[in-house]
């Protein structure tokens, strides 16, 4: 069962700009789905449509099997969200803020409110600051309060937009552990993030957006398979090493500073890493370090979404 599915979901703004162009999201239940894409690629607009905040121009979306935006009031109580940063009432304390949002919930049991609020604050480490006014919170504390709000009751799906924004390293680690914990409980986590190193650590699936289109969707291992691994040799005799690699038929041999590398395409007998290493040594190349390097998520991401510095939208 998919937690989120969309079919041809499109959003065209009044000025004509196409923010989301017919995307077909499929977020497997229980996964940690990383929603990636450069600034302006339509990620936030998509999330707003999933939460029923924006109405799609065409196409459809379903959250936990319920069509949105028509059925938002039926399904959103099972969904926690953090969208475009925290927002609370500056004149209320952290705890009062959570109580306010809990009071707006129509299906939750009021008798358990205090306990649930306390537990949510405890999970994000905000109990010491629960009685302070929100306007006195640091950015990290505001972010934690927003995460606490998404955990006020058991959720089946949690949508987090840049959850570690503004957090110190301890906080970042805690959030990562929290996401893993939430996912282990069976909740689907939909994370939108720019921190690829983090995505690599916690996500099981990814979806990559570029100028409104979904250019990749699948498991993280599938994404890694799209990029070819490279053989990397650290040696003082770079030219001979490059020559050996080229002679072996490896594609794109590169000479670097004290190292030679080439793309490891296909696994035939002549391109097995052990065989390559043997060939290098036989050719008299002093091999200081030899390895197979998988492409980084950053490289894969940039390959999918373009090298340019200007925003796409």
């Amino acid at each position, binding site marked *: 069962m998919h937690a989120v599915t969309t079919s041809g979901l499109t959003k065209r703004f009044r000025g004509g700009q196409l923010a989301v162009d017919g995307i077909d999201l499929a977020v497997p239940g229980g996964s940690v789905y990383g929603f990636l894409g450069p600034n302006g690629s339509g990620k936030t607009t998509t999330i*707003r449509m999933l939460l029923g905040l924006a109405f799609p121009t065409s196409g459809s979306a379903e959250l936990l099997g319920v069509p949105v935006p028509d059925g938002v009031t039926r399904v959103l109580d099972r969904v926690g969200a953090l969208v475009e940063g925290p927002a609370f009432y500056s004149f209320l304390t952290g705890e009062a803020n959570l109580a306010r*949002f809990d009071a707006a*919930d129509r299906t939750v049991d009021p008798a358990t409110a205090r306990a649930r609020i306390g537990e949510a604050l405890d999970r994000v480490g905000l109990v010491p600051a629960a009685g302070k006014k929100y306007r006195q919170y640091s950015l990290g504390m505001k972010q934690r309060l927003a995460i606490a709000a998404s955990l006020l009751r058991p959720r089946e799906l949690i949508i987090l937009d840049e959850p570690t924004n503004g957090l110190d390293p301890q906080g970042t680690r805690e959030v990562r552990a929290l996401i893993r914990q939430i996912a282990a409980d069976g909740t689907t986590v939909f994370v939108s993030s720019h921190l690829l190193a983090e995505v690599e650590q916690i996500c099981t699936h990814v979806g990559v957006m570029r100028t409104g289109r979904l250019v990749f969707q699948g498991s993280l291992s599938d994404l890694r398979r799209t990029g070819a691994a490279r053989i990397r040799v650290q040696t003082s005799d770079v030219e001979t090493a490059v020559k050996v690699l080229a002679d072996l038929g490896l594609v794109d041999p590169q000479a670097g500073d004290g190292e030679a590398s080439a793309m490891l395409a296909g696994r035939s007998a002549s391109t097995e890493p052990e065989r390559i290493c043997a060939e290098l040594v036989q050719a008299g190349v002093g091999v200081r370090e030899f390895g197979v390097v998988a492409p980084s998520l950053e490289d894969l991401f940039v390959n999918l979404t373009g090298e340019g510095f200007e925003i796409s939208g």
Partner: protein
Amino acid sequence: MAAPAREPQAVLSWLRFFRSELRITFYRKRNLALLAVAAVFPLLLGIVLKISAPTGGGPNDTTNAAFFSQLAGNGIFLSFIALSTMLTLVMPMLVGVVAGDSVAGEAGNGTLRYLLAVPAGRTRLLAVKYAMIVVFGLAVTLVVSAMSLAVGAVFFPIGPVTLLSGDTVSLADGLLRLALITVYVAAAMAQLGALGLAISTLTEHAIGAIAAVLVLVVASEVAASVPQLGSVAPYLPTYWWVGFDALLRSPLDTTMLAKGLLSFGVYAVLAFLCAWARVTSSDVTS
């Protein structure tokens, strides 16, 4: 959950949401300051009128003149003076701030998207906001009435009330009429509140919505005083606000009252419908 069990639960959860809204409204220092203004104004008015002791010929129409001339003899008239004076701009401002801030403030603050994601429900949220505005309008009116009555009782003698129609009624009757006037004025503020709510749904800037409400009030009052627009005047939103003097006649001028309440009702319903249409069909971009 069985269908019959859902009904009381829906009502109870709406009340819980409403109670939370009231709590944060009356907890907020800014709103308490507005109520303080509502309390201080009649006090200042009482002091000024005690010192300058007008004998008649008030600044506005003949009704006001009648109030002023009665004041020295009966402090209850301070209530009527305070209400009619403050209804021009002060009370609309106080209610306008809360009404203009209701949805626009949430949007500007960013909390609107989180309320809708709870999910609070768009219609449900609007209903809670309007109920809060009505209660606040009632609170402002009560503060003005009560404070001006208290100040009037302190500075001037209190006793049987001579009505505008010439009759004299007992103090108890006079107080009852004051209570009814308070309800009537609160209804006028509820009408203004609905207009403010509708304007509030059009923007993310609370200050713009508040200003627009005040402009609307001033424009309506100015237009109502232009003789050439005489035929249109009764259809303007502010025209019937000071119509509460119908309650100070014996017998009660029920036609006037009915027209006033009708104006309030129609405007409130239309404004709420506009707000509802806007909120349920537009993207939340904040």
